[in-house]
């Protein structure tokens, strides 16, 4: 009898094997290969070295220029041109130009390109996001992307897993971001190195799809190979809405599947959590946080730029104004989310509160543009990394937090939670 985890079952099925075990090296067939404007040019260059030309399947490659797009400078423009021309030459179906483009890990699930049971690699570390829908998805580099595009295959070392048993219901301002920051604070930035993080339990019904995307997205920040959720009614409803007609396969872990470790996370006891500079594991809750004055707030990214995130931020900012001298930058992750936020009046709320609203881009998260920090500046950000120099000057500081905390901080001008505004 097999004793496989969800992740192992997906890998086995794509390798044509009945069973796999942790540590086994396999070659598996890919359902989707993803790249962006930073990683694809390197991959396209590598692809030229193949003796066999062309791509394995023009429908199973997604190219999403989103990092330095709309082009921030001439070199970035040349990189985008390289990706655009490659897509055209190879008739790539899923190339997303400015206008259709969004932040890749929000855009692909929304476009129905990632569903339960899929095996996905992406030349972007946050490719692990799609595990929220019950897919096995993991980040790789440009050479693996090139090989994936050419052959439709990749090699994997089958991961062991850590099980997170989620129970309870979170309080009003506690979101998926607080759940994953809490977990990273608990196990550390290499706590899940090379492993799957499997999030299960009765409490997941209290986590929206957007919460789950945020949680799976940051599995990499604990070193994880992938993060994955079981497929329940909430996931099926999402796929029915966004991926109509695309076949999905539900894999469940065996009852006696083996885990390296098991943790129980009680959502009802979690509090708003902030990761201090310069590692996502440096987490604190507000009972430990003194006044920390800030200069900028960023609400967006592949971690927290979805509609739920914008609704939460708008709820905090409604009828309030950002602190004097504060720069508050809101970035809806896709055009569809942007439009929905407009229709719901959220964009109006942001602008009236003194925030700016940008077209979709990864820009400030990695210090590209649209909110780069100067020396000694501090930013509360809903993004995923607070490494040295990540958003700009090497002596700037990033505090990672939820959209609720980011919005409250924009109003007070210091690291704050919504209750400080009487919410």
């Amino acid at each position, binding site marked *: 009898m097999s004793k496989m985890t969800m992740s192992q079952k997906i890998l086995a099925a794509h390798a044509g094997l009945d069973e796999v075990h942790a540590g086994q090296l396999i070659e598996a067939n890919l359902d989707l290969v993803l790249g962006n404007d930073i990683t694809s040019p390197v991959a396209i260059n590598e692809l030229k070295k193949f003796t066999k030309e062309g791509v394995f399947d023009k429908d199973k490659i997604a190219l999403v220029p989103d990092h330095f797009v709309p082009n921030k*400078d001439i070199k970035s423009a040349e990189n985008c041109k390289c990706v655009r021309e490659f897509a055209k030459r190879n008739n790539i179906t899923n190339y997303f130009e400015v206008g259709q483009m969004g932040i890749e890990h929000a855009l692909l699930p929304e476009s129905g390109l990632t569903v339960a049971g899929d095996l996905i690699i992406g030349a972007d*570390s946050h490719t692990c996001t799609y595990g929220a829908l019950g897919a096995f998805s993991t980040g790789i580099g440009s050479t693996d992307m090139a*090989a994936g595009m050419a052959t439709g295959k990749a090699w994997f070392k089958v991961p062991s897993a850590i099980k997170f048993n989620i129970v309870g219901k979170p309080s009003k301002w506690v979101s998926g971001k607080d759940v994953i920051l809490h977990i990273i604070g608990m196990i550390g930035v290499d706590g899940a190195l090379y492993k799957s993080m499997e999030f299960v339990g009765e409490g997941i019904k209290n986590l929206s799809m957007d919460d789950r995307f945020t949680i799976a997205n940051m599995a990499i920040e604990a070193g994880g190979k992938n993060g994955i959720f079981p497929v329940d009614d909430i996931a099926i409803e999402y796929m029915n809405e966004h991926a109509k007609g695309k076949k999905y396969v539900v894999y469940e872990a065996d009852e006696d599947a083996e885990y390296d470790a098991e943790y129980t996370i009680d959502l009802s006891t979690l509090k708003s959590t902030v990761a201090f500079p310069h590692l996502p594991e440096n987490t604190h809750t507000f009972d430990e946080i003194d006044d920390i004055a800030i200069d900028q707030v960023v609400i967006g990214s592949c971690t927290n730029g979805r509609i739920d995130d914008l609704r939460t931020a708008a709820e905090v900012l409604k009828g309030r104004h950002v602190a004097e001298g504060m720069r508050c930058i809101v970035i809806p992750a896709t055009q569809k989310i942007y439009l929905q936020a407009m229709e719901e009046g959220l964009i109006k709320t942001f602008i009236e509160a003194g925030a700016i609203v940008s077209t979709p881009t990864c820009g400030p998260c990695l210090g590209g543009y649209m909110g780069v920090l100067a020396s000694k500046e501090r930013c509360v950000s809903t993004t995923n990394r607070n490494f040295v120099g990540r958003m700009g000057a090497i002596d700037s500081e990033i505090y990672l937090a939820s959209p609720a905390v980011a919005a409250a901080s924009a109003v007070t001008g210091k690291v704050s939670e919504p209750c400080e505004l009487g919410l």
Partner: protein
Amino acid sequence: MKAAKGTVFKYGDNVDTDVIIPARYLNSTDAGELAKHCMEDIDKDFATKVQDGDIIVADKNFGCGSSREHAPIAIKASGVSCVIAKSFARIFYRNSINIGLPIIECEEAADAIKAGDVVTIDFDTGVITDETTGESFKGQAFPPFMQKIIDSEGLINYINSGAATN
């Protein structure tokens, strides 16, 4: 026999890809250009001091963070012959093998070797020798499959050779 010899640059835990090559330089894919800024945010003198053959030694989780292959590309192009660490982040590990940058996991070596020591590495045996102190360490061997990719000097050559489908 493949071997390396060089002077050691030493770093701590969790050296992330943002400090190995900051994103402000990722608008370039040119290896030489990337090498000019390698390690800039953690060690601003690295790029000017590093010489061909030099070796990076670090503690745990080296290369954590982004999937940018620009990170091992920048290290390799700066002339570094090998990175020794207690552990490597998963994507960095894969990327290094795929582009042919030698990396070795060895906790004892990472603890004992100091900045400025001269170290030799025998890639056939995995033996790391600190010539300054005379101490030797045994690095963890690669699985045979990965060794073949390394011997082919990268994934593309390995696939082109037909070995991958055998």
